[in-house]
């Protein structure tokens, strides 16, 4: 037991083996969460060297489900890890050397960043934003900060962690056995809590868990036409514009001829049906049968060049998600639709009536609703 732990006179859990096992589990959870988060970022803000693929269609629902589940699983692990090492917080002197001071200083972004990521992520699931910054960007940059600090920490502790998990318990009977049993109970309990928390929240991703996911943000089948909605027409302030009988969809930009189509014109075009999931960045997803006009047919009708890209814009007067890009891969996919129907009925206004974008392997926020304009480009914008 460390001197500070002894000074605090408490349990035997403040020791290196618990810290090592929790550290390994936490590294796995944070690493998974970071990579899947990065994937979602690449989908929404692709750099010039990256083409976000349109296939497989259900990939994003998996990566984002894993992102939220691994972040949720990290909560008990992180709290337990901090609990185990907490006595070291009061170590005196605070730094034994310059290098030790640097090591400890790097714990500020590690601990603060890690806690901020799980707190802000959870509050985002609760749609509660008690801050003024824009959650996705703050969460994204804080993740880089945290992962950088994690790399420093892993470098410093990898050898000790390896030794600690390899070492077989030795020592006098009684003392060590009790401690080992105690630790196993503690670590097992934390692991069970972690798993239980995922089960209690992941029902939006895994339908089998729907009934037991008592804390899930969504419920299977609850929503207009039995499909959940992220943002309602009322809160996007599009109700009047969407219901306007004079609604027109325009296809313009790098086209041979500009198209202006009413709802009846769109219904008269050859339709296509596709079973595709809506997969929200917040982890839930729901499959539905969509019917509408393939974007590639519209682009062909407008005389756009093969391999064209497009921006799909909404009637929404404002908001960061009022428009979404279709790269050449997505624009050319036959299942990327401007949908008019959901499960055989006209779209509910909360699902984007009169027309919404729905395509394979896209983040939900890029499945633009209440579509009014498609702007075609020959090349990706700089």
């Amino acid at each position, binding site marked *: 037991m460390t001197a500070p732990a002894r000074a605090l006179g408490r349990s035997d859990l403040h020791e290196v083996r618990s810290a090592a096992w929790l550290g390994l589990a936490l590294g796995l959870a944070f690493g998974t969460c970071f990579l899947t988060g990065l994937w979602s970022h690449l989908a929404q803000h692709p750099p010039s060297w990256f083409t976000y693929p349109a296939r497989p269609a259900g990939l994003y629902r998996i990566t984002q489900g894993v992102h939220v589940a691994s972040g949720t699983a990290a909560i*008990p692990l992180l709290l*337990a890890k901090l609990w185990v090492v907490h006595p070291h917080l009061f170590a005196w002197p605070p730094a034994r050397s310059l290098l030790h001071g640097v090591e400890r200083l790097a714990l500020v972004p590690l601990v603060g960043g890690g806690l901020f990521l799980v707190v802000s992520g959870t509050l985002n699931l609760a749609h509660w934003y008690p801050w003024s910054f*824009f959650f996705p960007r703050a969460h994204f940059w804080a993740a880089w*900060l945290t992962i950088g600090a994690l790399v420093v920490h892993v470098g410093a502790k990898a050898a000790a962690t390896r030794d600690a998990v390899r070492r077989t318990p030795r020592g006098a009977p009684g*003392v060590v056995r009790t401690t080992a049993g105690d630790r196993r109970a503690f670590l097992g309990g934390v692991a069970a809590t972690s798993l239980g928390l995922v089960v209690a929240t992941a029902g939006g991703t895994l339908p089998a868990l729907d009934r037991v996911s008592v*804390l899930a943000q969504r419920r299977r089948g609850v929503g207009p036409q039995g499909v959940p909605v992220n*943002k309602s027409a009322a809160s996007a302030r599009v109700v009047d514009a969407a219901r306007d009988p004079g609604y027109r969809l325009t296809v313009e930009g790098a086209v041979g001829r500009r198209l202006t189509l009413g709802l009846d014109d769109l219904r008269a075009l050859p339709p296509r049906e596709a079973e595709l999931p809506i997969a929200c960045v917040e982890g839930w997803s729901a499959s539905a049968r969509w019917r509408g006009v393939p974007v590639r047919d519209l682009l062909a009708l407008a005389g756009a060049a093969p391999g064209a890209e497009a921006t799909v814009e909404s009637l929404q007067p404002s908001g960061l998600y009022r428009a979404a890009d279709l790269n050449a891969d997505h624009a050319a996919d036959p299942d990327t639709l401007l949908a008019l129907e959901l499960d055989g009925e006209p779209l509910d206004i909360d699902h984007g009536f009169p027309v919404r974008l729905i395509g394979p392997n896209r983040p939900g926020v890029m499945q633009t609703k209440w579509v009014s304009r498609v702007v075609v480009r020959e090349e990706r914008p700089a």
Partner: protein
Amino acid sequence: MSDGGRPALPETTSRRGLLVGLALGLPVIGYGVRGALVDAGATHPPELARWIVGTAVVHDLVLVPAALGIAGAARRLTPPRAWPPVRVGLIASGVLGLVAWPFVRGYGDDPTNPSLFPRDYAGGLGAALVVVWLAVALWLSGRQARQFHLRRHARPPETRAVAHPDGPGEEPSREG
């Protein structure tokens, strides 16, 4: 710069590993900080910094002392043998309560979107806590039964080594 003969780094820190970690990790930290600063219109750096430091401070100065207080009080009320399962019950209850809290309070509710938060979260939290404490009770009764079994079949003290196959003769070494 070591103090009184103590090594310059804790025994769990590898000097070489730390240096490699700093070489690889500091640029990543720098990338994150630079990104937040360049993106200041969205990230509001002063407020973001307050949140990052603030969550750590609240954790260390509020959450941990509160957990210590609760754990201390509960431990006094719990027979020593029952403590490990009870402690896990408290951990699970605390985590569930913290995560469920914004859902139970409905801070993010949007009355125009009935598909959002369609559950009874207070009831759900209650059910989850019942499950946790049922599991703790089950665990306790399992421990109790094992103890009873061991005591009935235990032979005189000199054969205790059977229950502790590590055997005597080694220096007591406590980890950490």
